[in-house]
């Protein structure tokens, strides 16, 4: 129901008394309203700005947030008001809608912010009043165009190709985006060069050259150097044909490609040559053949692949088709009218050039476009009067559609600019997102290394733990839970790729700082058969003694990535026992608990620990940190 109808409801119900004497059946019972009927002032606090309004005002629109019981969710008992943590400036407009029944769009606000507010308060934007509707629609359309360009830019294919792209896809990619590979760029410039050469050759071959010895008449260069020019022409046509065929092959949809404008231009450019090959050396036909050479000039349109400005111009003309049509139509009308008038005005003059109405067309067009060649000139007074009116009106008729065309061009041009800006912004945004993701992962890995993953000992928090927000705590706990669930661990790219590369007895040097970890590689690294468990030992000591639980484990400790720095002292702080009790129900390998040497000597590497049955060790490297493959064979 429209605005304010709720106000009139009591009146309409009261007027129903008029039906009572006429009623044929008994009237139904009225609905009982349990709420208190008296009107009261409600307080609405929006981010500190207090609004007051009658309850009835809000009740006018029961399907919005404020008009329904949904607002009770926001009621604050202590302050006896409704608190909304939203924009107070926007709320003003929302409340005005309730008061006056008309929604206005504030011009200085961002349209998306406004729509979000409307969505929050449950008001549909379609009820914007007529006064603001046009502005709202324009801005909304602009915004949508911008968003559409965003998605288009994303799909534009600047993203790297999947590695298993076929030759066809790669070729197509090279054609459409020449800046993706060097070969494509080279090809792009070569074709551009040959287009230019071909066009210039066409032009130059008509220039008069000095005549060959013995004759007086100037020859056009095309005839003097006919061999050279035909060779050039053939070469160009061959290149263009080759290019066209390659594009045709690479196109994902050949039908669409064949119908596109650019391919039509390509075909028209090379066709005259082939037709000329086919045609016999007939006298009559060669006349037609000569006119075919005119089509060679269409090669210049091939430049539109190379120039964005040309494409914009083409787009503009397409967009302004209706205005151009109007221009043409009005010009035609005016031409016919004025030509007729001039013809009859000049009929009496002797020896007049206005011999017929079609002959007067030429005069009219020349006059209306203010060219004024002067080859046809009226003599009589009437002719001169009408001629001057003709030229004045010509200016007006032509000037009218021009601003529309110009504004269309500006709009399309700006759109293109915007697309470029959007693409650049997208790149920055993606880079930032990637960095943020990496940062979060690194933070977690760091946290693990710092010994944050201890279960159960809440009181002995490691000193090295940086100040982390509650959010980070919870996030890391969540990731830890996931690790426990799947019994895999998070590592980073570097470690993973390295680990995959090495085989079972591989070893590598590591940085001296990352002492707390034992490095190694397992054979099961890349095989997905056995679950690979990577445990990061926060400290060099691995005290696992847990009663008689015999657990076999592949202690695979990941190597710290070269990029992250760990201060030397950290390892000493990690002198804690780590509980390595594991749930290994679904594990194929049994796990042995490893009794650790009681002395926590963080800087000593494990090789000195007593030989543990079943533990294979790698040969150490001579460097300080060795990696020991603490690989324990299954029992």
């Amino acid at each position, binding site marked *: 129901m429209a605005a304010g109808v709720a106000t*009139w409801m009591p009146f309409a119900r009261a007027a129903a008394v008029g039906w009572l004497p006429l009623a044929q059946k008994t009237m139904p019972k009225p609905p009982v309203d349990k709420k208190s009927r008296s009107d009261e002032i409600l307080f609405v606090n929006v981010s500190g700005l207090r609004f007051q309004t009658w309850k009835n005002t809000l009740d006018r629109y029961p399907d919005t947030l404020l008009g329904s019981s949904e607002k009770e969710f926001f009621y604050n008992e202590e302050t006896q008001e409704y608190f909304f943590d939203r924009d107070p400036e926007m709320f003003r407009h929302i409340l005005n809608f309730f008061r006056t029944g008309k929604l206005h769009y504030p011009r200085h606000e961002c349209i998306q912010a406004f729509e979000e507010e409307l969505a929050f308060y449950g008001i549909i934007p379609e009820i914007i009043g007529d006064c603001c509707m046009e502005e709202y629609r324009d801005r909304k359309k602009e915004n949508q165009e911008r968003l559409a360009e965003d998605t288009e830019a994303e799909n534009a294919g600047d993203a790297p190709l999947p590695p298993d792209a076929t030759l066809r896809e790669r070729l197509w990619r090279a054609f459409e985006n020449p800046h993706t590979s060097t070969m494509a760029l080279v090809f792009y410039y070569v074709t551009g060069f040959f287009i230019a050469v071909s066009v210039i050759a066409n032009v130059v071959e008509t220039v008069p050259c000095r005549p060959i010895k013995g004759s007086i008449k100037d020859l056009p260069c095309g005839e003097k150097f006919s061999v050279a020019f035909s060779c050039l022409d053939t070469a160009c046509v061959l290149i263009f044909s080759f290019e066209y065929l390659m594009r045709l092959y690479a196109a994902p949809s050949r039908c669409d490609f064949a119908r596109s404008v650019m391919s039509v231009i390509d075909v028209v450019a090379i066709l005259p040559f082939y037709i000329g090959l086919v045609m016999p050396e007939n006298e009559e036909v060669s006349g037609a053949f000569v006119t075919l050479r005119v089509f060679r000039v269409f090669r210049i349109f091939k430049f539109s692949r190379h120039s964005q400005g040309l494409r914009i111009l083409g787009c503009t003309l397409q967009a302004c088709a209706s205005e151009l049509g109007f221009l043409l139509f009005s010009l035609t009308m005016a031409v016919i009218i004025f030509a007729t008038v001039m013809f009859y005005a000049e009929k009496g003059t002797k020896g007049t050039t206005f011999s017929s109405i079609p002959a007067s067309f030429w005069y009219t067009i020349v006059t209306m476009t203010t060219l004024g060649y002067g080859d046809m000139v009226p003599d009589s007074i009437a002719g001169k009067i009408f001629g001057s009116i003709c030229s004045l009106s010509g200016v007006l008729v032509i000037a009218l559609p021009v601003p529309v065309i110009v504004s269309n061009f500006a709009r399309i041009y700006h759109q293109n600019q915007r697309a470029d800006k959007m693409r650049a912004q997208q790149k920055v945004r993606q880079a930032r997102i990637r960095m943020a993701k990496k940062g979060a992962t690194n933070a977690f890995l760091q946290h693990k290394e710092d010994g944050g993953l201890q279960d159960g000992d809440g009181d002995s928090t490691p000193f090295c733990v940086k100040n982390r927000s509650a959010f980070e705590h919870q996030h890391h706990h969540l990731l830890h839970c996931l690790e426990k669930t799947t019994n895999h661990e998070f590592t980073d790219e570097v470690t993973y790729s390295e680990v995959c590369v090495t085989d079972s007895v591989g070893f590598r040097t590591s940085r001296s700082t990352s002492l707390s970890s034992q490095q190694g590689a397992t054979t099961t690294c890349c095989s997905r058969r056995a679950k690979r468990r990577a445990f990061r030992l926060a400290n060099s000591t691995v005290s696992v003694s847990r009663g008689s639980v015999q657990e076999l484990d592949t202690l695979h400790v990941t190597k710290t990535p070269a990029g992250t720095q760990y201060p030397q002292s950290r390892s000493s702080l990690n002198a804690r026992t780590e509980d390595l009790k594991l749930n290994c129900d679904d594990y194929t390998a049994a796990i042995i608990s490893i009794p650790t040497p009681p002395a926590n000597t963080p800087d000593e590497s494990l090789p000195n620990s007593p030989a543990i049955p079943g533990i294979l060790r790698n040969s150490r490297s001579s460097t300080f940190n060795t990696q020991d493959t603490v690989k324990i064979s299954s029992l």
Partner: protein
Amino acid sequence: MVLEGMELIAITVVIGLFFVVFKQFGAWEPLTLDESSDCELELSTVRHQPEGLEQLQVQTQFTKKELQSLYRGFKNECPSGLVDEETFKNIYSQFFPQGDATTYAHFLFNAFDMDRNGSIRFEDFVIGLSVLLRGSETEKLRWAFNLYDINKDGYITKEEMLAIMTSIYDMMGRYTSPSVRDVDPSEHVDKFFQKMDRNRDGVVTIDEFIETCQKDENIMASMQLFENVI
């Protein structure tokens, strides 16, 4: 100089353009003064202030708070303080989207507009509401009679009743079950007259009406229905 056809036309055109140009220069101002006298200032619509709160309290049965609430709603909808018939019809039609409520709204408008000046002021509105919601049964019946009596001559004729009845049935619209036949209103009118018209003179007077209604229990009982509307 003998003027030929085309030259005549040319000179006419030139003279016409001459006039146009002169008009731009304002040379014809004195001649056009009397035509421009009808472009008066558009007077803003009349604003009507209601009588004071105390007077209305005396005239109606509403409390002060109720009057305040009613006036706030009324003023919000009609800032000028007056409701004209068109607006009234629009508002009333919104309650009956399926049918055509304009005719009945017209009758209703006349019932509310007691001084017959073509617009309902707040006083008319509130006094009417007071009768309908807080008045005695006799007063309500009197109001209903006033509604049915289109020409306010004190008698309800069959034609008046038929008009009212048709307009009520019009509000139902087309999609009813069972569908409204053309004879339904007149049958209803006949039933009404059979009941109300005591002396079978073809018209119903106010006394007949009130007397008959007071004897009918159904009608009396239903009078209490709308008391809690405000």
